[in-house]
């Protein structure tokens, strides 16, 4: 833990120079853009399922017009941030760990140091910033696509009244209380996942088992951390 904190601290302290902005951009591409497909597909699927299940339950009480509200709240506050974070951990986190582990194993980090470049600044910091920026964007996209998927299922297929679907949702979803807090979660998750991924890569044994075990650890540790963090964030943000 101490070493992990040290790496984090050093990477943040020596902020990437403005000249290195292109490195951050490249990393946003690697981590964020390449995760869009899986995020959007999952978002749509989950939104659709939520609409389906939600409808089945609500129709018993004649409250199916509240479907939009229910799905939107669940997505924006919980499922959106959490599921997109888990997907991010699996896709982006594991590739990040493998990449850094490999760079260390093939002595690329050492040779970079020899040339006089600080690998923390050039390799680690851009990736941390990219994760920090990409995760909220992915979380938002997940929720939006999810709600859209839910509307397709609920309104176009199951016959929920379109006006009611959206207006009751708009009435009930509060930007500050719900959407913003969801975004806070995604930022926290992004930091945690990227931090764990980078550290595991840095610390990995330079063998093929070492890297494979490090990647597994990244996915497992970050997933568990996301879920635990979610509980505490929800507790603090929504219950106090």
């Amino acid at each position, binding site marked *: 833990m101490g070493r992990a904190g040290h790496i984090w601290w050093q990477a943040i302290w020596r902020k990437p120079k403005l000249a290195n902005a292109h490195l951050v951009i490249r990393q946003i591409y690697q981590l964020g853009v390449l995760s869009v497909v899986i995020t959007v597909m999952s978002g749509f699927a989950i939104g659709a399922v939520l609409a389906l299940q939600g409808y089945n339950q609500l129709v018993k009480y004649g409250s199916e017009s509240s479907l939009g509200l229910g799905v939107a709240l669940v997505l924006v506050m919980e499922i959106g941030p959490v599921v997109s974070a888990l997907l991010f951990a699996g896709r982006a986190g594991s590739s990040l760990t493998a990449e850094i582990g490999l760079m260390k194993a*093939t*002595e690329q980090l*050492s*040779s970079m*140091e*020899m*040339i*006089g470049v600080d690998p923390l600044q050039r390799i680690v910091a851009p990736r941390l910033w990219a994760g920090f920026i990409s995760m909220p964007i992915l979380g938002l996209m997940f929720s939006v696509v999810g709600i859209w998927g839910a509307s397709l299922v609920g309104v176009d297929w199951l016959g929920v009244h379109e006006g009611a679907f959206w207006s009751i949702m708009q009435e009930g979803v509060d930007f500050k209380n719900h959407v913003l807090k969801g975004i806070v979660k995604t930022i926290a998750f992004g930091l945690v996942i990227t931090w764990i991924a980078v550290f595991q890569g840095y610390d990995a044994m330079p063998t093929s088992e070492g890297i494979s075990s490090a990647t597994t650890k990244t996915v497992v540790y970050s997933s568990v951390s996301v879920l635990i963090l979610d509980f505490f964030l929800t507790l603090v943000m929504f219950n106090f």
Partner: protein
Amino acid sequence: MTENSIILEEVVFRRSQRRIFNGVSLVIPKGKIVAIMGPSGTGKTTLLRLIAGQLRPDSGSVQVNGFEIPDLSRNELFEVRKSMGMLFQTGALFTDLSVFENVAFPLRIHSDLPEDMLRDLVLIKLQSVGLRGASELYPSELSGGMARRVALARAIALDPGIIMYDEPFAGLDPIALGVIVELIKSLNAIYGMTSIIVSHDINETASIADYIYLLSDGRVIGSGSPGALFKQDSPRIQQFIKGLPDGPVAFHYPAADYEDELMQSLAPNHWFTF
């Protein structure tokens, strides 16, 4: 008297309880090719890292060009590293950059050259290792020998006064081997680069080194020009130089008495036949 580029005095370095270096002293004269050799695991690569300032000794002095390396600040170390080039065992090219960009990397970091001057410099360096035509390829498309040559071009990009080779001969076919040997010789002859070779390849190294240090168990156990070293009496030195399978470095891993161990598996039967 030729001045000394690098001086190590009584360097002690520990890693998790083990004393990797227990009072190592050596000097590397300017402009010479000096080899550091020894059995695997003696920490030869660690020595290079100590010289480069990537690691700090627990005690002792590491001087490069008059600078006491462990005492330097980050910025000062940055400056000193401009005059040191290192060729890693695996080449360690940056896999996401092309050959051209790899060689250009140190130049971009340490200097503000305009793009066209940079381009010329890179091409010159690549030409000197014979790979100018490969400038657009990526490391994954290169053979081992070619990758090592590109890494060499990168190591000399800033025209360093000192260049360190970490196992440069390992795993190369005879032709590639010949190429590397030639390059090391000519870099030293033409540019006067002080060259340190870490290797356990006796024949190749002896053919080009001016001076050899033999390391074992954390100390220097022998030194001298290749010819002088071959004649030295010590059994350890002789075993290493001649490549003898048994000697001070034992063939057998420590084990129980041979007869006893075999007897153990025979013992049960032995009882019954009584």
